[in-house]
């Protein structure tokens, strides 16, 4: 119990400290109290030229004199209950305005005054702004449950820091997050997210979690830890990046000597005829391609290094939209074995045109076998593909069709098969007012090898699938039903038939109760093995009465595989009741959002083949949660 009281003491101290800090920092956005007279509108930092002024006097009903810049405007003030509204006939002029309120019949604090800044431009002598958009979140729980035993206290905290300074067109900002988790005796501090920026006009220098805008063949938006510089002119832009190739965590700089990506991208907009500009982008990247480990990657691939560059042009000419790119790469596919540099090219062309209401699109892409995209884990290589697609609407119906043909093993490597993949797809949609939206699709595909390595069998896989989706909704509710069936004929690895059904819905009632059920069923017949998976979830959010709410999620999963490979059922439930105590603390700590919580978590697993795997864990938690914005602005 000593541990509990220690925890409780620390939590209470932290709680009060956070609330006091937040109250001080946040005071500029609150209704400003001046004795018993409060300025409700405008908030000092949100003042606009068209704003009205609203004064709240609590129980005091008058009389009241309001002076704006020394002029008595009381005759134009509307009195509504405890509030007094002044709407000027002309918008306030930009600049400083002095507001004075005289409550001549009030026993105390008969006078209050404020200085308002109107308009977006700061006043002479107030060109600099310091701001904070930070927040703090803290939860503490006493845990009860046989699984926890000694681990009976849990605390979580998160500090989201966002502070900065502005001076004219120049802005300096810093953003970071620090998560703290304590499930005694384990303490875990997880700092993540880091961004330091210096901005001037449209130019930016960023350090931390930067995003690089590549091209489809080089690196699509790449989010990594490092340094990025952007310069933006009227028609041209330049971005330079140096970053870690890994998705990093913690506060490591990302600028260590290994696993680096360096790159530059240039864009230029040519204002062509009919306002259809040509955009040219050139990107060059150099660095490690695949890392063998990082916080969100598991890989058996060896690290490799290389570089890639691409030139992209896009626009519209004579009614035809085009998007074309050529890229080249050089890489060492395994820096450990030093296999030597491999070079290759990639290119793609997309065209689209609307003819007689039919939208037509053509694609061609060829990516060499040795082509490597830096840090683009979804890259396609060793493939040539043609694709045609078109679609048109007919009243409430829409029909689209697609054809594609691709070939792998472009170098005719005798160690691998040369494989063709042909696909045809048809989709029909019917969207009619007051009727369910219907979508039907059919896909036919065939994967066939043209040649195989000596001794290897031929690949010839036939794949057909059909999907029907039905959506229906109204005010306060919606539902989706998706049914799919696919048949795969594969003489080499065995046939497969997969049937899936998924039903989901959402129900909201008077903004008090929302229920979101999902249900899915999957039946797989793969090479003589049968598997049935049934899963359901129910998510609820119920505002029972004003300060009391209940949230929860229940899941149910049944897994049954033939030949006694698996037969189990798992049920889980989380229920969480919150008593919002914010209103009771508002007078002391006006900025916080706080609640007392009672949570239940249950996990029941029944294995019908191996009862030693069975478990039934239940946990009850009694806790408190606090959220507090740490926001404010200071002009000087």
């Amino acid at each position, binding site marked *: 119990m000593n541990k509990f009281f220690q925890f409780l003491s620390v939590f209470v101290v932290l709680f009060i400290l956070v609330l006091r800090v937040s109250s001080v920092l946040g005071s500029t956005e609150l209704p400003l109290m001046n004795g018993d007279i409060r300025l409700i509108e405008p908030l000092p930092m949100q003042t606009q030229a068209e704003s009205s002024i609203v004064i709240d006097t609590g129980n005091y009903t008058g009389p009241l004199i309001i002076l704006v810049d020394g002029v008595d405007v009381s005759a134009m003030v509307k009195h509504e209950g405890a509030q007094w509204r002044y709407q000027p006939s002309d918008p306030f002029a930009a600049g400083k305005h002095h507001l004075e309120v005289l409550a001549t019949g009030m026993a105390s604090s008969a006078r209050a005054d404020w200085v308002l800044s109107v308009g977006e431009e700061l006043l002479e002598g107030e060109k600099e702004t310091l701001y904070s958009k930070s927040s703090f*979140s*803290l939860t503490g729980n006493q845990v009860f449950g046989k699984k926890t035993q000694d681990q009976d206290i849990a605390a*979580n905290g*998160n500090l*989201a820091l966002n502070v900065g300074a502005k001076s004219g067109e120049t802005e300096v900002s810093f953003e970071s*997050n620090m*998560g703290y988790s304590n499930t005694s005796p384990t303490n*875990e501090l*997880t700092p*993540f*997210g880091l961004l330091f920026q210096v901005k001037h006009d449209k130019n930016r220098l960023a350090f931390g979690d930067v995003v690089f805008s590549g091209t489809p063949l080089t690196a699509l938006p790449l989010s990594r830890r490092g340094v990025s510089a952007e310069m933006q002119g009227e028609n041209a832009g330049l971005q330079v990046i140096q970053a870690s190739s890994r*998705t990093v*965590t913690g506060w490591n700089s990302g600028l260590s000597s290994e696993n680096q990506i360096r790159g530059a991208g240039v864009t230029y907009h040519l204002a062509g005829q009919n306002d259809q500009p040509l955009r040219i982008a050139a990107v060059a990247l150099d660095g490690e391609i695949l890392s063998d480990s*990082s*916080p*969100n990657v598991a*890989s058996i*691939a060896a690290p490799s290094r290389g570089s890639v560059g691409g030139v992209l042009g896009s626009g519209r000419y004579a009614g035809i939209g085009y998007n074309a790119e050529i890229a080249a790469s050089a890489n060492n596919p395994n820096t450990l074995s030093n296999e030597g540099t491999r070079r290759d090219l990639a290119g793609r062309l997309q065209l689209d045109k609307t003819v007689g209401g039919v939208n037509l699109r053509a694609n061609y892409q060829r990516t060499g076998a040795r082509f490597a995209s830096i840090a683009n*884990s*979804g890259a*396609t*290589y060793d*493939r040539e*593909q043609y694709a045609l697609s078109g679609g048109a609407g007919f009243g409430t119906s829409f029909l689209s069709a697609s054809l594609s043909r*691709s070939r*792998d093993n472009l170098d005719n490597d005798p160690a691998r098969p040369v*494989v063709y*993949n042909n696909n045809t797809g048809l989709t029909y949609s019917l969207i009619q007012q007051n*009727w369910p*939206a219907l979508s039907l699709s059919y896909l036919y*595909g065939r994967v066939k090898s043209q040649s195989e390595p000596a001794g290897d069998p031929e690949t010839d*896989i036939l794949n057909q699938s059909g999907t029907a*989706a039905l*959506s*229906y909704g*109204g*005010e306060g*509710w919606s539902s*989706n039903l998706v049914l799919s069936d696919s048949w795969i004929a594969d003489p080499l690895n065995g046939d497969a038939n*997969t049937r*899936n059904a998924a039903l*989901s819905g959402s129900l909201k009632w008077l903004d008090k109760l929302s*229920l*979101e059920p999902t*249900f*899915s069923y999957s039946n797989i017949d*793969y090479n003589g093995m049968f*598997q049935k*998976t049934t*899963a359901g*979830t*129910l998510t609820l*959010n119920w505002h029972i009465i004003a300060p009391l709410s209940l*949230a929860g*999620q229940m899941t149910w*999963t049944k897994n049954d595989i033939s030949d006694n490979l698996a037969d189990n059922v798992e049920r889980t439930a*989380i229920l*969480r009741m919150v008593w919002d105590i914010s209103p009771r603390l508002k007078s002391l700590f006006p900025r916080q959002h706080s609640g007392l919580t009672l*949570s239940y978590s249950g996990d029941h697993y029944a294995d019908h083949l191996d009862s030693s795997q069975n478990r039934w864990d239940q946990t009850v938690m009694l806790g408190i949660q606090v*959220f507090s914005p740490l926001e404010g602005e200071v002009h000087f």
Partner: protein
Amino acid sequence: MKINQWAVWILILGVVGGTGCSPLAPIPVQSETVHFSGGSTTGPLTIRRVELRFSNGQAETIVPRNGKLSTQAIIQFNGNGLFRASWLVDDRVVEAVSTTVTFGNTLTVDMAPPTRLPIFEPGQHRLTLRIEQPVSSLTIPTLIFMVTADENSEGKTQIK
């Protein structure tokens, strides 16, 4: 007392179906959540690389209570065969995934739109993909998301 789950589901569907529905409005159909791209095709299915990430491209994120959050798995593989997996949050299954891989080298699995991650409980949560088939020796990474104690307003999602 054992609860009959079918009765619960029938009750839920009955409640949903029996609610007033005027005016009606069509809503979009469910989008595809599994995508493939090129590469080798023959041989049994084996997994070479698994990357999990949130929409910010990273392994961690912060989301307000009752906000919205989705995730994506990018899986590189060889061969073809049956792929089965489950999305787990704090060791609880929130969605089952099953598809037959016949062509390509990259499988992208998006969390299906109806799936709601349990983000009503403030604090730190762990999200991972449990790959059940094919069996792999890879240690699948775990993503971390922090749910703050502030209530999220409709349509206002703060994912950093």
